[in-house]
């Protein structure tokens, strides 16, 4: 820490026996901060560990630790004795009124220049992770770089500190108050990616023609697995903003899009939404919606019925390459599928997922998904019950 800015101070007070201290008398020694560690492994809070040498006298010593213009969680402050842990004891901690400070009472069986480690949670200093990926032209793999961004708005200058994360090598850096530092954190080449197109019937318009001069973009994502086969898998990938570029084949790149990923544990996948495809067009229409199996009460009112519904979705691929489109359909309530010309996976009681292989344009014409189903036991005026049963 430079002399111009001493914000954290440790003051050693030697108590002479029998003296009753009315006002707090400070300043006996001002031990310099030695090795400092900034530990950023918890995204919620940053732990600072700093070593100092306290000149202790035999007997009871009082050490005053105070701070200003920084935000320290006072309950988080700890003191560890490093050289003579059996002989130097922390007896108690007291907090003076109306001060950002605390006083350690330490007993020592002899005079020591004792190394101690003071640790505390310091606010407004943290790290972000960002990613930059360059996809190859065929979009089968990416070169992934991860950057660590240190942001120090704590009020404290660190001339040099050992910065620790929960993985990767520790490194030495200084960082001043209000400074931001960005550094390359890790690189992984040729990480395989799967490109995914998704049409969710609950989120996208069914008939693009009804929209005047607006394209319906089919969301496109890159799916990345954090595992060994991907050249990753050594540790969880932290969440952060990812910017994805693509090699354009002319020794340059284009920007494909950006998304934010959550934490990706080892073995898990992340999907980064990069943009919308306007070259895959889905036109979905309901061709039939008829009440059947109607039951009436004595007043001849309908009290229960089923439906006979038919959905037809035309899927056109205008791209010059094949694609696999994931189509998500939703059928509320109780239902039975009567006819469906494509295989699907039931993701939950009301969600169906189709994986539809689309050849490149001009081959085989548009694909057509036709599904006919009956919704069962519908009661007029009664909302469809939540079919999820939340157990007692």
């Amino acid at each position: 820490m430079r002399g111009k800015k001493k914000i954290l101070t440790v003051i050693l007070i030697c108590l002479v026996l029998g003296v009753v201290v009315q006002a707090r008398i400070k300043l006996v020694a001002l031990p310099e901060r030695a090795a400092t560690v900034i530990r950023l492994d918890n995204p919620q809070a940053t732990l600072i560990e700093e070593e100092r040498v306290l000149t202790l006298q035999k007997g009871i010593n009082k050490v005053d630790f105070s701070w200003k213009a920084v935000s320290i969680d006072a309950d988080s402050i700890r003191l560890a004795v490093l050289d003579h842990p059996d002989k130097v004891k922390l007896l108690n901690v007291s907090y003076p009124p109306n001060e950002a400070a605390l006083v350690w009472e330490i007993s020592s069986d002899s005079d020591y220049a004792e190394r101690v480690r003071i640790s505390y949670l310091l606010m407004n200093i943290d790290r972000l992770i960002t990613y930059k990926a360059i996809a190859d032209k065929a979009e089968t793999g990416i070169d992934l770089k991860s950057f660590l961004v240190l942001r120090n708005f704590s009020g404290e200058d660190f001339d040099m500190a050992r910065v620790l994360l929960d993985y990767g090598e520790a490194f030495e850096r200084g960082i001043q108050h209000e400074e931001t530092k960005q550094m390359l954190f890790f690189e992984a080449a040729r990480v395989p990616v799967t490109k995914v197109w998704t049409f969710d019937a609950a989120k996208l318009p069914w008939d693009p023609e009804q929209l005047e001069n607006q394209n319906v973009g089919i969301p496109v994502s890159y799916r990345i697995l954090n595992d060994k086969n991907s050249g990753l898998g050594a540790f969880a990938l932290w969440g952060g903003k990812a910017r994805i570029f693509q090699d354009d084949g002319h020794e340059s790149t284009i920007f494909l899009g950006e998304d934010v990923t959550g934490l990706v544990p080892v073995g898990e996948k992340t999907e980064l939404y990069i943009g919308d495809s306007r070259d895959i067009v889905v036109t979905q229409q309901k061709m039939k919606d008829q009440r059947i199996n109607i039951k009436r009460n004595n007043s001849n009112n309908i009290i229960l019925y089923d439906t006979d519904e038919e959905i037809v979705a035309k899927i056109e691929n205008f791209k010059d390459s094949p694609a696999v489109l994931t189509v998500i359909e939703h059928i509320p309530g109780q239902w039975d599928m009567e006819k469906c010309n494509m295989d699907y996976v039931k993701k939950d009681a009301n969600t169906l997922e189709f994986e539809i292989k689309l050849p490149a344009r001009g081959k085989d014409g548009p694909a057509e998904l036709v599904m006919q189903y009956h919704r069962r036991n519908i009661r007029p005026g009664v909302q469809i019950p939540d079919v999820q049963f939340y157990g007692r």
Partner: protein
Amino acid sequence: MKRIFILLIIAVVGCTAYGKVDLVTLPSRDTVQLTIYNSADMTLVRESRALTVKEGANKLQFSWANTLIDPTSLEMLPKANADRIDIADLTYPPRVRNLGLWNIKSGINGRVPVEITYLTSGLSWRAFYMGTLTEDEKTMRLQGYVRVTNNSGEDYENAQTRLIVGKVHILDQIAELARRQWPYGRPEGPITLGVPAPQIEAASRVLKAADRAAGIYAKDELKEIRKEGLSEYFLYTIEGTETIETGWSKRLISFDVDEVPVVNLYKYEQERYGDSVVRFLSFANDEKHKLGDTPIPGGMLKVYRSIDEAGHLSYTGQSAFKYIPVDEEVELNLGPVADVVVEPKLMDFKTENYEFESPGRNISGWDEVRTYTIEVRNTRDIPAKIEIKRNFPTQYWDISKKGDFDRFEKEDLDTVKFTIELKAETKKRFEYTVRTYHGSREEDWKQ
């Protein structure tokens, strides 16, 4: 106006000065490439410069006051001796705005070519079109243009200019990132904006002047635009380089295709267009129509018609259209017309087949039967194709039809479509009867 500066500072041991006077070289841009997006206010800038470095620690200061650069997007990569140049970090110093400092450890003395990339706001492009129909309106000359505008605050001289057609997903507006007081914000507290960006408004005022002056650019030599697909996007690369000063815009021709076959398509759908017939110009972005090399970016098309041998024109109308993928058909809405007429008339109405809850009690079901005649007239001196859509208020219906129409289709559960082809100055007439089922009669309906 040059607003991006690079200073190379050879670090003296213990030197912590940021952006002071330890200037060694001021490397100028050797080349610059702009990749401009139109779905977002964003441009990827790639510039190459040659730095002169000394063995050991070097600091390179990059500043961009009064521009709209996103500082979080800055990246520098050595293009030679990459194994001997270590870019240790990029520091955004405290209490200094629009400035980044690269700490470089060099294993060599001498010149190192580097590539600096970043995203900036303020450059944009859009597509627009001119269509000229032949007298018989069977074909159209279609000319596509792009117009590139620079409001970035930075002059880009001799820049290779590339345009991206496509819709990228972005989380933050680049202009907002550019105006942040701290590039990555600060922990917890809200991200405060620094100064507002008056230069954008100022630049748009300048642009108006540039609009007036745009005529000068019309005399530019025609340049080819190379088009290629990448991922979900299309990349247009303008031949050679362009100089676009801040505040100015430039128009370039993208393609010029003559004799694109077109169909005059007229549509009638009361629920959508009211009682008027709406004219559409229809073609496909495919080889048959002398197009189809690449998708056509969305934009405004102004349509004219040749009216005589001397090449005089009449303005037909304009239509904004969306992105047209290769092989897709497009229908350009040119607005309502009076020279093609569709007249539906309800000729008969009756109700029948009443059902009752029980004898002497309320009505529970019935049918409604409507008979319409539809007369379609083409008063123009050229043929026309007309699509008529009829919507029914229920999905329980039967239809019978007779008369002079060319095609009938069920569009969806409550819509049908009649298609009629009419020669010049002719008319056709057809009739349909629709029975709709109501109440308990719905149960008797069979598809």
